[in-house]
């Protein structure tokens, strides 16, 4: 019976294919049209076609691929692990029994349905363009509903009805809906701010959730601005939320920023910080700026009532290699939480009319020591390029070029080695399988080695290698000697270097190449491109990602 059904399916398939082939032959409607080609060349197009490919391959229907593969050349054999990673799907035994398309569908269902099963028709609207917003109307008095809702802060003499009305007619743009933006937006929404602009170019990922508290497990892959607004709407539906799913660029910054009363910099990278600063100076907006990394936080209000701007303090951006991002440096989730709350406090004070205390101060939070320090800052710099007496910056610049880094906190990819000096994770797997004698050197910091590592690797953190730490070099020398004894050959001994993503490993190879032939004897150092994350994606899906 099964055989009969199989034959039936095959017949059906062949019939379909014949139909398609006939259509192609008749050339009435070209199968691969320009729209299709164009779509495939976009990121979304690539994802969609990869999902279809994976779907077909999952059910062993790969043969049907022949229909649309030859013309396009862009449909690669799908790499499920990689695709799942890009889509933010964390695979487990439940997901592996079906195609990834099913997981994508489940995620949409989770997102659009509420606990009671009904769909939420009042979902916030996502903007991909900057549009002009209608003016926020000033209210003359508070409604009974508002009086009840805000009663606990209304009775504060510092705020009062006047302050509350001021809040309700204020608009705040939050640049970045991450670790700082989430708590900031949450308290502003709770306090009854009039309008909240929520800007972020990124989607929610699992590794965001420890600090970006407005998002959730079922929001993975969803734009952060939309996810934040969805949560906030449940907290306070009276507030107007405008979601911008985009990168803040020089092209749109002025048009966007001039529509808001107060700007909050909750971004995660240097170019955006200069861009937001300059745009605030050019439009005359107060900038409530905070940042956090590891166990430290900083807060300042720039460009407010004659006080300095970011450039007054830092006229020149730091060299890109001296900037640490959250992925590399780590961040304790509550630290940006605290800084975001402080931002919310200062925004509320400015919006309500109380005024801020941080115009010419920087607040430093040392979470390890549990100390706050207020450092008095310089006055406005008369020579400042953007806010000084004779400014040279009248229009927004190319901030990525100015800072020598990209406007995101994604890890930079360095290119120090040639193709011949690198091997792929799959090639290294082959070396392991074939038991080729070699030494594997893991150059990550010990704290990362503790998270996960490959067996039989030796650990020499890059910073120790850079400093030519004697203990480390001796350890390496000993291991090389052991290796050479085993092979008994005089050849250059192969050394493979690995790190998390394949950046530090390149730096380490450069150092090892310098040492080769000298104190370490002849060695042939190569690095594993893509590092342990490539190992997890391409070779061993059970290896953790972090």
């Amino acid at each position: 019976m099964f055989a009969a059904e199989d034959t039936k399916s095959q017949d059906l398939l062949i019939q379909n294919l014949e139909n398609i082939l006939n259509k192609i032959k008749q050339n009435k409607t070209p199968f691969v049209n320009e729209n299709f080609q164009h779509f495939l060349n976009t990121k979304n197009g690539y994802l969609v076609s990869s999902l279809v490919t994976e779907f077909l391959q999952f059910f062993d229907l790969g043969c049907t691929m022949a229909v649309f593969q030859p013309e396009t050349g862009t449909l690669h054999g799908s790499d499920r692990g990689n695709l799942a990673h890009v889509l933010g799907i964390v695979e487990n035994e439940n997901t592996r029994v079906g195609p990834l398309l099913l997981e994508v569908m489940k995620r949409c269902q989770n997102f659009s349905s509420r606990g009671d099963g009904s769909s939420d028709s009042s979902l916030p609207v996502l903007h991909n363009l900057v549009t002009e917003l209608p003016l926020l109307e000033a209210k003359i008095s508070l409604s009974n509903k508002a009086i009840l809702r805000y009663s606990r802060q209304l009775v504060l003499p510092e705020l009062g009805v006047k302050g509350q009305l001021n809040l309700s007619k204020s608009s705040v743009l939050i640049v970045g809906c991450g670790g700082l933006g989430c708590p900031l937006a949450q308290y502003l929404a709770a306090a009854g701010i009039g309008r909240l602009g929520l800007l972020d170019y990124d989607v929610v990922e699992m590794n965001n959730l420890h600090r970006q508290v407005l998002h959730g497990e079922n929001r993975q892959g969803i734009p952060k601005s939309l996810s934040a607004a969805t949560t906030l709407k449940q907290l306070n539906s009276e507030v107007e939320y405008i979601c911008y799913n985009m990168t803040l660029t020089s092209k749109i910054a002025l048009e966007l920023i001039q529509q808001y009363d107060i700007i909050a910099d909750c971004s995660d990278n240097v170019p955006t910080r200069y861009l937001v600063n300059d745009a605030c100076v050019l439009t005359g907006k107060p900038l409530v700026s905070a940042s956090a990394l590891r166990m430290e936080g900083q807060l300042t209000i720039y460009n407010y009532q004659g006080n300095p701007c970011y450039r007054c303090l830092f006229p020149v951006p730091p060299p890109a290699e001296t900037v640490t991002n959250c992925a590399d440096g780590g961040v304790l989730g509550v630290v940006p939480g605290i800084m975001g709350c402080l931002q919310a406090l200062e925004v509320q004070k400015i919006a309500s009319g109380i005024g801020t205390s941080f115009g010419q101060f920087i607040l430093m939070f040392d979470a390890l020591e549990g100390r706050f320090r207020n450092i008095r800052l310089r006055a406005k710099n008369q020579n400042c390029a953007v806010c000084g007496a004779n400014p040279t910056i009248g229009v927004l610049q190319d901030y990525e070029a100015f800072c020598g880094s990209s406007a995101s906190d994604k890890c930079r990819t360095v290119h120090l080695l040639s193709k011949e000096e690198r091997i792929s994770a799959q090639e290294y797997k082959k070396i392991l399988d074939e038991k080729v004698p070699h030494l594997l050197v893991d150059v990550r910091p010990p704290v990362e080695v503790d998270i996960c590592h490959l067996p039989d690797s030796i650990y020499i953190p890059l910073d120790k290698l850079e400093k030519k730490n004697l203990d480390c070099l001796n350890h390496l020398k000993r291991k090389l000697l052991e290796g050479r004894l085993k092979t008994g050959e005089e050849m250059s001994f192969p050394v493979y270097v690995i790190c998390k993503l394949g950046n530090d490993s390149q730096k380490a190879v450069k150092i090892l190449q310098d040492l080769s032939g000298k104190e370490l004897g002849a060695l042939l150092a190569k690095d594993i491109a893509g590092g342990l994350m490539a190992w997890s994606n391409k070779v061993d899906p059970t290896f953790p990602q972090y």
Partner: protein
Amino acid sequence: MSCEVLVLYFAKSAELADVRSERICVAQQTTSQQLWQEIVSRHPRLAALRDHVILAVCQEYVSIGDQLLLLQPGDEVAIIPPISGG
């Protein structure tokens, strides 16, 4: 006359100096440039941060240059590079 001050290193400067705070002996009357030089001579890797830090003495900004300082024993000197994470 020299005196002992407490130097606090924040963010990247703590990483480059490999220390979060230390007491150092410096001339009581000095310029902010000399004070910075004294600190850099102990931790040469800090030189890269020269134009990218806030130098503060007793929780007050000082510009690294000719500014004259009259330090007291126990004064707090802070090296503050901006952080940009969020």
